[in-house]
């Protein structure tokens, strides 16, 4: 019955998470002890998930893939002009949550998102919200650089043309140049703008994708492991770029590299098995985390 109610969109959760029956310490059938990570209970989020100057807000976020629940009641604000890092083991829901923020999960037919999600206070899942326009305001950079099979110029100009951001050729030229400069790529490609974007190195391709995301003048940039396929130098370039972009944009980054989270972000959110365990200032998370599970994860211990 609980499942039926919980799967109905817009319904409040029938049973609060805290009262979910805890898993028994010993498996009834096999008699084996469950892995110790179950021993630490997650009762809500510790730390400061909410901020005063929220750019984006999620309340009571549940995500389901078919019958399987991937995210359980996440409340999280993303502050204006901050970089928030989302960390956690594989399958903890951090990427899924990131994709909630620009409705990328819409493209997965069995995926269903509930809860309230706002950008500048406007409901991003409202009937009036056009996902294409939303994604222009909330851009995304993926793990693997994915330039279009077009010239460098057209890659960057694509979104601007789609959204009609430039009225003539010279405006478009300026926009492409400005975006490439912001992405720190212009110097390297200024004589090769008509060459295919796919011919660039991995790090350059990723910066091209960032330039493409910036070109439509987004307010928020979501990054899903943007440097996991790059070498340390390209990674450092992109991290430096993120720091520069922070003055104009709000950035949420999912990363498996804890050192990267520690280097680039102001706040860090730790996800574990679909729940948001802890959100705190990055300095605090990496020196004195509040939750035992966060401590175990960032110090590389068993759960």
């Amino acid at each position, binding site marked *: 019955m609980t499942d039926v109610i919980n799967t109905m969109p817009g319904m409040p959760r029938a049973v609060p998470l805290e009262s979910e029956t805890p898993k028994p310490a010993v498996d009834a059938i096999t008699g084996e002890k469950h892995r110790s990570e179950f021993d630490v209970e997650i009762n809500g989020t510790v730390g400061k998930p909410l901020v005063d100057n929220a750019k984006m807000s999620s309340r009571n976020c549940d995500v389901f893939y078919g019958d399987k629940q991937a995210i359980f009641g996440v409340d999280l604000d993303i502050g204006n002009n901050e970089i928030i890092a989302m960390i956690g083991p594989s399958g903890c829901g951090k990427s899924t949550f990131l994709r909630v923020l620009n409705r990328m999960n819409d493209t997965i037919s069995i995926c269903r998102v509930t809860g309230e999600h706002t950008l500048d206070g406007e409901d991003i899942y409202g009937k009036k919200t056009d996902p294409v326009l939303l994604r222009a305001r909330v851009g995304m950079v993926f793990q693997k650089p994915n330039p279009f099979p077009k010239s460098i110029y057209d890659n960057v100009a694509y979104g601007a043309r789609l959204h009609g951001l430039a009225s003539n050729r010279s405006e478009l030229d300026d926009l492409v140049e400005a975006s490439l400069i912001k992405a720190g790529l212009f110097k390297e490609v200024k004589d090769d703008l008509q060459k295919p974007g796919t011919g660039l190195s991995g790090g350059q391709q990723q910066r091209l994708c960032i330039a493409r995301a910036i070109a439509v003048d987004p307010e928020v940039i979501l990054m899903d492991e943007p440097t996991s396929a790059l070498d340390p130098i390209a990674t450092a370039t992109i991290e430096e770029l993120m720091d520069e972009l922070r003055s104009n944009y709000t950035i949420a980054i999912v990363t498996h590299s*804890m*050192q990267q989270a*520690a280097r680039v972000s102001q706040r860090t959110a730790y996800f574990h098995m679909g729940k948001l365990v802890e959100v705190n200032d990055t300095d605090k*998370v*990496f*020196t*004195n*985390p509040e939750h035992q599970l*966060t*401590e*175990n994860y*960032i*110090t*590389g*211990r*068993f759960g």
Partner: protein
Amino acid sequence: MEIGQHISQRYNEELEDIRNQVLKMGGLVESQAEQAVKALLESDFELAKTVANGDEAVNQMEIDIDEECTRVIARRQPTASDLRLVVAVVKVITDLERIGDEAEKIARYSKKLAKKQKITTMHSELSHMSQLVLTMLHDSLDAFARLDAEGAVGILGKDQQVNVELDNLSRLLITFMMEDPRNIKNALRVSWCARSLERIADHAQNICEYVIYLVKGKDVRHTSLEHIRSKYFPYDIEDGEE
């Protein structure tokens, strides 16, 4: 707080090894301090000589542990409690090395004092003060070994007692010097020993502050004892009132 449980067994061993080395260094320094005090009180020239020559081992341990900590930082990028452990260790061994230096100084003055007249007149005062200091040192090392923040906070503030003892001893020494100027040389040596003991107490207190940092994640240096207790150990106060 636990050191083990890392997915990397090797990492467990490295941190465990650092901790064991610090305990070993602590044991060595404590013994140096004890022996120095013994040599002073018993005017034992040979013992004083041994202690004065023993400081080299302490110095070498500081260098070795420092190196190991640097290696762990470079290779493991420790975070959270692991990071605090490494930072605390680097600081603790600095204080341990200084305690070793003070013990060496006491031993050197003891060598000179042993050859001259006995320091019987100040024996009981010196003995009392050194017991106080050695207990503080022992307890602070114990708190570090057990990662016992409550124990550590209990030691903070005890240096006040040591300071009172030092003042008393100084007054006594001044009288002694005024009685006969020929006493001045030795009285100064005793005074320097007392000063060294007082410094050892200060270093022991520093170690306690690092233990609190390590366990609680709070830097309590240059903070009043009342503030530390009320903010980080509230239940201690409740116990006290009952």
